């Protein structure tokens, strides 16, 4: 059987990026059809925004100091909603077992799941930000463009560890409780960075530069750790 030149030029079907992309596209397609996770996340965040809006006077100048924390609390809880169902779908139809037996690299599955969650949570953040601006009468006093690296790095920090711990929690009792229990302590420096950076940018009082570097360091360290150890997690019985 001869192989055409174009076929030979394609990357092998089970290379890291090919599998990652294929799994990612599958997850996004499934999510787009059902919109389960996205709807739950949106509703949850909306509830948090409304409830917290009763806790202080939005016209006061001091509210700008608190809002950074509130926004990230809302996103953190919403992210947990998304993360909890990350692996549930795979378990239901023994897809996870099939994956373990296949020659595809474990990290491809991890990257696909993490990137999928990253996209879902980012979409949520993009949808929720106008609501925050409205409910809390936000005006950004510092360099607003800096909010983008903060959001990207912060979301990845939550999602990369969250996906890893979600895989760890899959074999535990009280799976949905286990994930936040494991995730929140480890995420504290990242959350501190996100909240402090957002507050600095909103109030314009301090530079967010250090926190952005902190988030970048956090992301690099823990992405490496997750990739190094995920193979073991996947094959845990």
């Amino acid at each position, binding site marked *: 059987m001869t192989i055409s030149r174009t076929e030979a030029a394609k990357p092998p079907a089970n290379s890291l990026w090919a599998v990652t992309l294929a799994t990612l596209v599958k997850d996004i397609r499934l999510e787009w059809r059902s919109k389960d996770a996205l709807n739950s996340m949106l509703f949850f965040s909306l509830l948090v925004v409304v409830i917290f809006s009763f806790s202080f006077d939005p016209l006061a100048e001091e509210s700008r100091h608190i809002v950074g924390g509130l926004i990230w609390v809302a996103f953190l809880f919403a992210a947990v909603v998304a993360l909890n169902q990350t692996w549930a779908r795979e378990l239901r139809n023994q897809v996870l077992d099939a994956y373990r037996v296949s020659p595809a690299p474990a990290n491809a599955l991890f990257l696909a799941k993490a990137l999928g969650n990253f996209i879902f949570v980012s979409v949520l953040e993009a949808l929720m930000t106008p609501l925050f601006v409205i409910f809390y009468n936000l005006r950004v006093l510092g360099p607003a463009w800096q909010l983008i690296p903060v959001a990207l790095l912060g979301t990845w920090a939550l999602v990369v560890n969250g996906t890893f711990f979600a895989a760890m929690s899959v074999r535990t009792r009280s799976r949905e409780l286990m994930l936040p229990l494991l995730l929140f302590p480890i995420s504290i*420096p990242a959350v501190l960075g996100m909240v402090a950076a957002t507050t600095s940018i909103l109030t314009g009082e301090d530079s967010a530069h250090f926190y952005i570097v902190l988030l970048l360091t956090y992301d690099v360290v823990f992405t490496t750790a997750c990739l190094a150890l995920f193979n073991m*997690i996947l*094959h845990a019985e």
Partner: protein
Amino acid sequence: MKRLFPILSGLTAILLAYALYLALVVAPTDAQQGEVYRIIYYHVPSAWTAFLLFFINFIASIQYLVSKKASTQAAAKWVVLGIGVVGAVACLLPQVQTLLPAGMRPSAVATTVLLIPLFYFLIGWLFPGDRLDVLAVTTAEVGVVFCTIVLVTGPIWARPVWGIWWAPGDIRLTSTLVLWLIYVSYLVLRRFSNSAQTQMLAAALAVFGALDVPLVYFSIWFFRTQHPQPVIGGGGSMDPRMLHVLLISWMAFLCFAFLVCWSRFRLELLHREVEDAHALESLAGEGVAAKTSLPLNRSPR
């Protein structure tokens, strides 16, 4: 071995009583804080003991993770040796010495760095194979106990001295709180996990926790520079007589911690013996309801 334990317990009790006497009677009164500062003789030794126990847990977890494959085990040994040698030599270089925080002597830092490979090889030799995991769970649990004491005595000390129970920017107390949270989640994972690989998962979590600690420290450190807050644990140099009492107090608590760890270690070995007995029983089909938590028999606990 069995007679040694009561003898050591008696000696430790005497040492603790002596340390208490030193702390309450012999140590001089502090010029600013009065008598309340004496909490330091329980607060600080508990903190140092907790950190030591968590450090041992970290070393044991890494060794357990790499022990599964001979290649990773050998590589880890070289890395650890390298860290020790490079770190110790680096402390001799003047460029590195300027980076050290004020008050830390380079020789002290070099000795501390050399302790890393020393602990690694000592623990690997004393606790072969599965005993590494027993050591890990022991040090984690006893470490949490001592860490709880730090977090309870800290605010009790802060209230009369600073008027507040807690300051989020207090770098030492907040870092300790995060460490406590990480290890409580470690213990919860161990208890709730149904996997046959629970031990590996827990070891991975311990490694994540250890990677997190310096990040926690730096994030709070910078937060403090933006929001200056009182330092609750007290800073600066100490009267040598106070330092003397502090070190004796630490020695007493270390002996106490050693005995508690020894007991917990034996408890864990007994626990595994009972589980093995249950497993053998269910394999032999004796008809007794097996209470094992191994995946051999998925009966609810």
